[in-house]
């Protein structure tokens, strides 16, 4: 219980400090910090409209965060989620070119599966390069992300381009029946449910199943894994594949629910933000859910800050940057034993006493 309290208290303090710092920052621009805080809250969680905006942004963040979190539990630092997302979206948008899909739930599922397969292949490639060629996965996944974005642009502006998209190259829009709609008539699409379910299921998988535990052993102590004969390479590839599939589904959902086709606005940095969400959730898939909602909220509040107070739209980037930096830095304070630190500030004469416990 105390442990859990400490787990939550540190990030909460860090976010409070970031908000304070941001208040001072906008104060220099001649804006009242109090007003900024109120509007930030209103824009993110104030009413149903802001909640919809927040949750809509949180959905892809959850999935791209899983693309970091699951491989991280197997001991890999993957930072190429952006590439898996982009290719997932491309695969989903390209599937109707190749296959006549039924315009119903089956077709939508097929789009998501296409996205998942593309994303899984891309991240599993980074895992394969590490296990079988000895290439660091952080670097290779970053390179693969750039290659994926190049491929995406090449195909979207080339063979897959819809001739009707003049100014902004895009693929043909998917059929109406294939799109993912809102939940109960709201703007929040079913991608949020996919994201939350993916987080919960992968959390359960890592925590409660034998294969999930094996993945954690491989990540926690490769020597032990080798000693007990776990198939490390297979498990690492599986973790990468599952993580990549999540990011690929994020791309497919963005295409099916938001853009209706694949265009350059798919490359919106969700992959990079997902890295930070995962690190802040300490690679715990269940903790990814609240962190993603929080940072979705920051993003949603940005436009309100711009409209109401005339602050530049980049101000929310500054706030996010501050929050990320401070939360990551607070990791460094985790191991400090505050109680002894405070006690030792005032040196006191210690009276040796003989009690029953002391013996």
């Amino acid at each position: 219980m105390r442990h859990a309290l400490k787990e939550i208290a540190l990030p909460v303090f860090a976010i409070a400090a970031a908000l304070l710092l941001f208040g001072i920052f906008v104060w220099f621009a001649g804006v009242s910090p109090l007003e900024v805080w109120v509007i930030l809250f209103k824009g993110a969680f104030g009413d149903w409209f802001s909640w919809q905006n927040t949750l809509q942004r949180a959905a892809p963040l959850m999935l791209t965060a899983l693309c970091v979190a699951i491989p991280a539990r197997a001991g890999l630092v993957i930072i190429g989620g952006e590439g898996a997302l982009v290719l997932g979206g491309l695969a989903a948008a390209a599937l109707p070119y190749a296959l006549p899909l039924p315009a119903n739930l089956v077709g939508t599922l097929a789009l998501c599966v296409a996205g998942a397969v593309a994303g899984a292949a891309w991240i599993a490639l980074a895992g394969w390069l590490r296990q079988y060629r000895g290439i660091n996965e952080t670097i290779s996944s970053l390179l693969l992300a750039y290659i994926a974005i190049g491929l995406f642009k090449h195909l979207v502006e080339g063979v897959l381009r819809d001739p009707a998209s003049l100014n902004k190259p895009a693929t043909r829009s998917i059929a109406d029946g294939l799109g993912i709609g809102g939940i109960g008539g709201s703007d929040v699409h079913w991608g949020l449910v996919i994201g939350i379910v993916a987080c919960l299921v992968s959390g359960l998988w890592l925590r409660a199943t034998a294969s999930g535990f094996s993945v954690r052993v491989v990540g926690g102590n490769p020597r032990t894994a080798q000693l007990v004969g776990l198939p490390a390479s297979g498990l690492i590839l599986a973790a990468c594949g599952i993580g990549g599939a999540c990011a690929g589904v994020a791309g497919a959902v963005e295409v099916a629910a938001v853009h209706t086709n694949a265009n350059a606005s798919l490359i919106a940095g969700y992959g990079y933000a997902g890295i930070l969400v995962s690190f802040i959730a300490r690679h715990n898939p269940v903790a990814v859910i609240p962190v993603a909602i929080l940072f979705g909220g920051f993003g949603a509040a940005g436009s309100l800050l711009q409209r109401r107070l005339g602050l530049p739209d980049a101000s929310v980037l500054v706030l996010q940057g501050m929050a990320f930096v401070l939360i990551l830095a607070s990791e460094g304070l985790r191991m400090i034993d505050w109680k002894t630190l405070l006690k030792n500030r005032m040196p006191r004469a210690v009276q040796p006493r003989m009690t029953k416990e002391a013996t």
Partner: protein
Amino acid sequence: MTADQWIALVAGIVGGALRVGAPFLFVSLGECLTEKSGRINLGLEGVLVLSAMAAFGGSWLTGSAWLGVLIGGAAGALLALLHGLLCSLDRVNDVATGIALMLFGTGLAFYLGKPLIQPQAPQLPAIPLGDWSDNPVIRSALQVNSLVPVGIALAVFLWWGFARTRAGLLVRMAGDSANATRALGYSVAGLRIAATTAGGFIAGLGGASLTLFYPGSWNEGISSGQGLIAVALVIFARWSPLRCIGAALLFGGAGAIGPALQSIGVGWGYHLFNTVPYVLTLVILVLTCKPGSVAVGSPGELSSTR
């Protein structure tokens, strides 16, 4: 294709390599210095964008492009100093901190740079390398950024410094064995913070060359990921400052193939040519890495090569 088109293509690629390669050269030298000390700085993307803004603003306010360059470098050094300090804390991951600083640096630059989108700042002078030729295409393509010689001198200086000076040896020692550094009574964290900060200053010069020479204005799309890809460049150069020059020219040249082809009317494969450097880096990694061993020439303490 006619002879004129061929000349235009070659001049475009060579000129582009020198123009586009300049920021690559500085970020790769900055990252090289940082990584030699045993730390990776993915936040150089933030450093690059922030220093690009600061250099442009400095040049605009002071009226001197060279003062702008200094201000850009200083801004880059400050952000890198923050990275160095944060990473010295226990249990703070340098990859994640780098990405957080990338967000913070670009956010700060966009926020503070809003009033700089309209004005024109004094630009750095160009060195006309193409004066020997009568061909106007070559003459205009070979207008070289005056920071390029600075960068080349810096690369040679770093190479000499790593090999011959006490400070260079200390940086390399912090990168190769933290225990040896401690045993000799030096502070590992202090050395790494110093190297990261200096690396940030060098990368900041790259930002300055973006806004003060090519493309020569401040906007929010000024960097196309040069800072992030510095990590790949350094691997490509196998942690040698001298090889960084070649790597930067190659990356710049590969980035210039697309626009050069477009200028003579070939539009196909523009984005594919842009990915050539990344594919090339990956291929080199595949060829040089072996499972169970670290990359050749890499600092032993580097988290990204183990």
